[in-house]
């Protein structure tokens, strides 16, 4: 590493070295049985050098420094315009907890037993079901250093659990997926909660009913809300899109963009959430910030380069993997809860649908906030009750339109895969076709 560092300090005005290594272990069950146990080890190094406003980036998992220096030398002939300054170290008073030494130590036997317990609960009620499920544990360490004397070493632990259940009846295939992640080991209670949620939806899904007509109220579960509306919405908040005028939100700070019942923020400071961080991947301290406050656009999420281009402050949102340059990345996205009880929202609907999962969302014109997808898990609400599952129905709309006027926002919120927290939301401003 010293050889690379010496080369970089001679070649560039400023430089940065990011190196990371990780060990991961995973257990996979397929069709109810243990199928594969795997272990992965990976490492890599990425550098960025800046001379005046010219930036060079290169990465490698090869340990030969001479070969790497040759590549950097070649790339430096073709820099990218990026007038950024690598930050110095700023001490943070309160450190967010990202690591537990116990997480990666949990033995395979324990993980296998947990998966079996969850599987058996489902099979007891649905003997024909096929469960694909798994556990994934990761322990990683990254080191970021730069020519402004910054040196940050981050150790993180991760555990992820997922379960996907399939029930086939004639030519109907019902598929339900859920999971959770944390820096701590996923405990029995969390697995029980996921398993019971899946059982609830499997029971509700046994009966297939006709979908309602277009124009009806649609209730999104937190997971349905993320897949259909929040994901395309966040594309417009990406600082890189804002800086390049590819977002509807360019120069719209403090304008009302959606219903005033809605506030959304990014919070990297939640202990043991896998998306949390103390510093972003460029060494900028990360902290909570508002994206939308009472329906008004407050800020996009920025890294150094996009904030410079957009003439804003960075929000400490740089995320990277070894092989790619840092880019604006969200951490824990939270939508503030509403005032209505979920039960009361459902009860208030004469004819509508509840959407939990979509197929093919995010494969259209996301820059405008448009979405369109097949409803892979949705239920009809009739006279205030969930009466059965709907099939062969599509949902489409625009994230900004769907949120421009909402009917209800629930008091209850749910954590989606351990990093995103949203309430249930009801709107009429989406299109249903079947």
């Amino acid at each position: 590493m010293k050889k690379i560092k010496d080369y970089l300090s001679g070649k560039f005005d400023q430089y940065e070295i990011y190196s990371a290594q990780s060990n991961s272990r995973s257990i996979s069950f397929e069709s109810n049985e243990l199928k594969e146990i795997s272990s992965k080890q990976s490492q890599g190094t990425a550098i960025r050098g800046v001379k005046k406003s010219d930036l060079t980036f290169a990465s490698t998992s090869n340990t030969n420094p001479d070969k790497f220096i040759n590549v950097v030398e070649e790339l430096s002939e073709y820099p990218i315009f990026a007038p950024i300054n690598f930050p110095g170290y700023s001490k943070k008073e309160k450190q967010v907890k990202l690591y537990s030494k116990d997480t990666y130590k949990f033995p395979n036997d324990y993980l296998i037993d947990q998966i079996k317990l969850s599987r058996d609960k489902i099979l007891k009620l649905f003997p024909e079901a096929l469960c694909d499920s798994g556990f994934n544990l990761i322990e990683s360490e990254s080191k970021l250093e730069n020519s402004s004397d910054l040196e940050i070493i981050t150790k993180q632990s991760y555990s992820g659990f997922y379960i996907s259940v399939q029930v086939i009846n004639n030519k109907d295939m019902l598929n339900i997926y859920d999971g959770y992640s944390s820096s701590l080991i996923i405990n029995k209670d969390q697995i029980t909660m996921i398993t019971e949620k899946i059982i609830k939806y499997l029971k509700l899904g046994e009966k297939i009913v006709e979908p309602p007509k277009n124009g009806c109220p649609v209730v999104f579960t937190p997971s349905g809300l993320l897949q259909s509306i929040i994901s395309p919405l966040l594309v417009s908040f990406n600082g890189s899109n804002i800086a390049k005028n590819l977002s509807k939100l360019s120069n719209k700070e403090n304008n009302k963009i959606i219903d005033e019942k809605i506030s959304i923020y990014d919070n990297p400071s939640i202990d043991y959430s896998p998306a949390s961080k103390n510093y972003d991947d460029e060494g900028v301290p990360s902290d909570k910030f508002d994206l939308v406050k009472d329906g008004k656009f407050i800020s996009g999420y920025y890294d150094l380069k996009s904030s410079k281009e957009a003439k804003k402050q960075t929000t400490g949102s740089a995320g990277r993997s070894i092989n790619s340059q840092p880019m604006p990345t969200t951490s824990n996205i939270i939508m503030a809860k509403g005032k209505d009880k979920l039960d009361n929202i459902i009860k208030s609907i004469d004819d509508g649908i509840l959407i939990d999962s979509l197929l093919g969302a995010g494969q259209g014109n996301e820059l405008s906030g448009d979405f369109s997808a097949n409803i892979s898990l949705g239920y009809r609400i009739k006279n205030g009750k969930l009466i059965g599952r709907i099939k062969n129905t599509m949902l489409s709309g625009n994230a900004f339109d769907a949120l421009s006027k909402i009917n209800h926002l629930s008091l209850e919120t749910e954590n989606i895969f351990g990093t995103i927290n949203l309430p249930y939301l009801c709107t009429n401003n989406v299109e249903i076709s079947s």
Partner: protein
Amino acid sequence: MQKDIKNIISDSLKINGGEYKEIRIEENNSTRITYKGNSRENISINSGIGGCARVYSNGGWGFSSFNDIYESKNKMSEAINLSKLNTGKSINFEKNSAGKISIPARSIKNPKNISLNEKINILEHYKDLIVNKKNINGCDISYGDLERRVIFTDTLGNEIEQSFIHVILRISANSTDGNEMLQSGFSIGSLGDFSIVENLDKEVKECVMKAQNLINAEKIEGKESTVILDQILAGVFVHEAFGHLSEADNVYENERLKKILKLGTKFGNKDLNITDGAKIPNLRGSYDFDDEGTPSTKTPLIRDGELVGRLHSKETASKMNEKNTGNARAISYSYPPIVRMTNTIIENSNNNIRDILKDTKDGLYVKNWYGGMTQHEMFTFSSAETYKIENGEIKETLRPVKLSGNLFNTLKNIDGIANDLLINQGGGCGKGGQMPLPVSNGSPHIRINSCLVSSG
């Protein structure tokens, strides 16, 4: 490969334990250049080396991947130990071996011989053709080339070295009326031929025009509609609507699905013929041996509307007592091979597209793609271009649409297959976290007489 590494590999395979063992070592070099908005966003060269050991015991697998290939022996021991945790019943794989073989990469115009400067000049020129035009607020250009050398050895006696060169390019133009953001683009790719990236001025200019035309285009209301798919989108359709369900790892341990997907079941009309095969040469999904050392094949999946075959790995073929088709593929050394498509095509029939169009009173002409997804029998895919069809003629531009269907109905709803097969190599496939795997898809124009479509 250095001699000492070869010795490490052969020593690793000699370690006791496991019913079947394999080691895959890979070296790769890639270049990536992207433009976003009005400027160059990224240019990077990445080099990597690594490997993996995989062991079969007690009906399941142990897998261990690594960067430091001098660790191979330890990682093999680890994979053996992990595989011992399985508690199922093992099956016997076929024991064929190709022995020692080395296959060089297909190289027509090797991107390695093109200087970075020349690559940048070409892309810079396309960028200039897009930016600063009326209602255009930027471009999205993504170029990548990748050279992979993979050495596969196993306890059956295989020692197979294969190299691949991939080139891929996606170009799109972004347009806006000040409020909405729209885009039009295209993707191309090749196995070992950089020249596909050259001489695209006409296509890029068309792309700008199409993006501009989208501004005044209307959105359709969601409905069932007759749709004519161009060759590119029909290729994505066959991949999503049928290809994924023909992958035997979805079926081999699923008794109910086995009944539904029994060979001989009718899925389409008489002129529907679907084939997948890595043995179809010179395409991005082409290879001689898969990542389990099985020779590639060309597999008929549907003949005259009937299901006649499916795609297999060693394990799925043995378990279903069908022939291994050599479709076990891994995206890199970090992943175990799983059953994947290669080059998937709907075969030509004998209709003329002009006749199919003339016969369509009311419908949509959908072209080019954004993406597609499958969840068992349900699938969606999205067009990048959509036009209204009225009384047999293509009329005004509409906003792109998403199409959605169901395996059991939609294939039967194909009522017109033309004779103008084209193959698109600009796509990648994702499954089990392994993405984008090089594949190609192809089809002639097809008409589906009833398909659920909605705007977006």
